[in-house]
């Protein structure tokens, strides 16, 4: 292995390992701050630079939390499976970090001094892989295992219930997640993340097409469920299961779980940005290629803000409703969406009139399907009128 190749590999991977964990810290702060503002509170605003009274809007909070987590006692319940109890958080973090390399973050602009290194960087980047999207889903699947491991190894009934819920939920929601990604893959004809992003150049984002929009919404909902975010945070449902599968975790193991969860949030938002929001595309990217990374992160953050916003607004679904929602609502609608997008692909480039017709019809079909499925599933659920006695 030549020295240049080592440099190239380092440049391609190290930023991922640096940027995202530090963004994790920022995101915890952001989430707490945004939730606080939604709830008319201030949020963390005291921890800033140590030994001074400079608050910096509480930006020191994540660091303080991290230090606290590191020094906390690591408690393993008596009778728990120590090995799996230890492995679970590690296994939660590894796949989350691994999938980051399938995001089309092109760091080749760093190597301005050597054209060949830039070329090498491009060659070793994971997203250039032909099956990047498949790899992405395959590796995120491991996450399920870690959650169940944690739930089972904790020797706690709440953890067990949380683990069982997590498995059912993650397996169910993987299907609409993949099926909605299939729409884009069909349109592009490639599983290569770079090519998918490039296909949306010139503001041809898939979210701006009816099938793309539907697929994006399904993808986003399924992504919420995959990352255990509200309103699908049943595995860690606080009001029912204390903290679900990590009830018995403390200290650094808990921090690892937390980190893994946030990194998979980044990863899945990143994939959504690649598939539907044009990857790193944005104004002035052609002039400054490094801006692509910025735009990409901006898209990720706006998706994450929506996640936080939803968390601040919505209560949680129930287990049976959650499963019903995946199998009776998201799955049929995503299959219909695939059919629609297939037909639309065949009718592409047939003139503006045909395109408009296809758009109108597919929007109509999708909306009617959604409303119909909703009626079927929740026939008796509607607001009521109330009577008064004088």
């Amino acid at each position, binding site marked *: 292995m030549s020295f240049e190749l080592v440099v190239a590999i380092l440049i391609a991977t190290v930023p991922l390992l640096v940027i995202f964990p530090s963004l994790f810290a920022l995101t915890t702060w952001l989430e707490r701050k945004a939730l606080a*503002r939604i709830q*008319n509170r201030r949020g963390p605003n005291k921890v800033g630079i140590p030994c001074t009274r400079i608050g910096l809007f509480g930006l020191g909070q994540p660091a303080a939390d991290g230090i606290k987590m590191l020094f906390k006692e690591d408690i393993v319940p008596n009778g728990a499976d120590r090995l799996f109890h230890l492995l679970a958080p590690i296994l939660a973090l590894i796949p989350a970090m691994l999938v980051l390399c399938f995001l089309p973050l092109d760091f080749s602009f760093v190597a301005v001094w050597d054209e060949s290194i830039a070329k090498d960087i491009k060659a070793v980047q994971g997203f250039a892989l032909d099956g990047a999207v498949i790899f992405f889903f395959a590796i995120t699947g491991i996450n399920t295992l870690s959650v169940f491991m944690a739930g089972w190894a904790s020797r706690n009934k709440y953890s067990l219930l949380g683990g069982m819920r997590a498995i059912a939920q993650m397996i169910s929601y993987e299907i609409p997640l993949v099926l909605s990604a299939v729409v884009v893959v069909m349109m592009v004809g490639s599983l290569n993340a770079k090519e998918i992003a490039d296909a949306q150049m010139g503001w041809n984002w898939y979210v701006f097409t009816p099938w793309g929009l539907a697929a994006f919404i399904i993808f986003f909902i399924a992504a919420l469920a995959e990352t255990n975010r509200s309103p699908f945070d049943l595995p860690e449902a606080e009001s029912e299961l204390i903290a679900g599968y990590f009830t018995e975790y403390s200290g650094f193991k808990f921090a690892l779980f937390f980190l893994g969860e946030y990194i998979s949030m980044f990863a899945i938002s990143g994939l959504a940005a690649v598939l539907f929001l044009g990857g790193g595309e944005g104004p002035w990217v052609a002039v400054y290629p490094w801006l692509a990374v910025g735009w990409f992160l901006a898209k990720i953050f706006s998706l994450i803000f929506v996640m936080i*916003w939803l968390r*601040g*607004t919505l209560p949680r679904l129930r287990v049976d409703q959650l499963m019903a929602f995946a199998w009776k609502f998201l799955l049929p609608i995503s299959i219909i969406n695939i059919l629609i997008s297939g037909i639309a692909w065949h009718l592409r480039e047939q003139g503006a009139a045909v395109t408009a017709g296809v758009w109108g019809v597919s929007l109509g079909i999708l909306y009617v399907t*959604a*409303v119909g499925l909703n009626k079927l599933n929740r026939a008796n659920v509607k607001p009521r009128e109330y009577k008064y006695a004088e």
Partner: protein
Amino acid sequence: MSFLGGGIFSGMAVTLRNFVGSYFDPDRLTTNDYSWRPEGQLPQSAGEYPREEGEQLSDATTVTNYSRNFPMLLHDGGDNPMDAIRCVACQICERECPPQCIYIEKDYGEDGKFIKRPAVFDIDVSVCMSCQICVEVCPFDAIVMNSQFELSTPNRFDGLLLRREDLLKSNGYYHRIHPEEAAQRDQRMAEEKAAKEAKKKAAAEAAKKKAEEKARAEAEAKAQEETGDKEEEAQ
């Protein structure tokens, strides 16, 4: 619900309005900012908190003009507050206190004679429940509610036992923390005092009158006797 997911969107609109509103509308940002205060300055308001161990809020610190926390004893000023203490150690509050947190011992002078003031007046604030019953039953307006809320201490036994000296506060302080209530109380006390004095005066006058009448009657009787005597003498 006009369209699919309409309820969720209207909810999200509400939270977004609160999110944005919290930056502009003070009504939507209700929590206190416990901001740092300058070095060497005592905390002045409810939003400020003791920083160093043993540091208490300044005497003027109250939550609002109406809030109550723990009882305090009033004195009417002077160099030695113990001389002007209103409490006469009648022990009514001790008897009526629902959680029984007051402890009083009467003060006896060197000659063993009861001086109308407490020798010991303790309130265990770890037991006190701030119910204000003692204030209501006190016939001498000697005990009222303080509103100083910062009483944290590292010692949970003796540190939370307020002695007579800790409890003594001047009437002026009372006026500062509860202006309305104090004014009303003073007015009522003045009225009662005036009524009492009027009554006393009336009683004194009545007594005087009675005495005068008696004197006059006696004088008359005497005079009569004298005249009788004289008459007798004359006869």
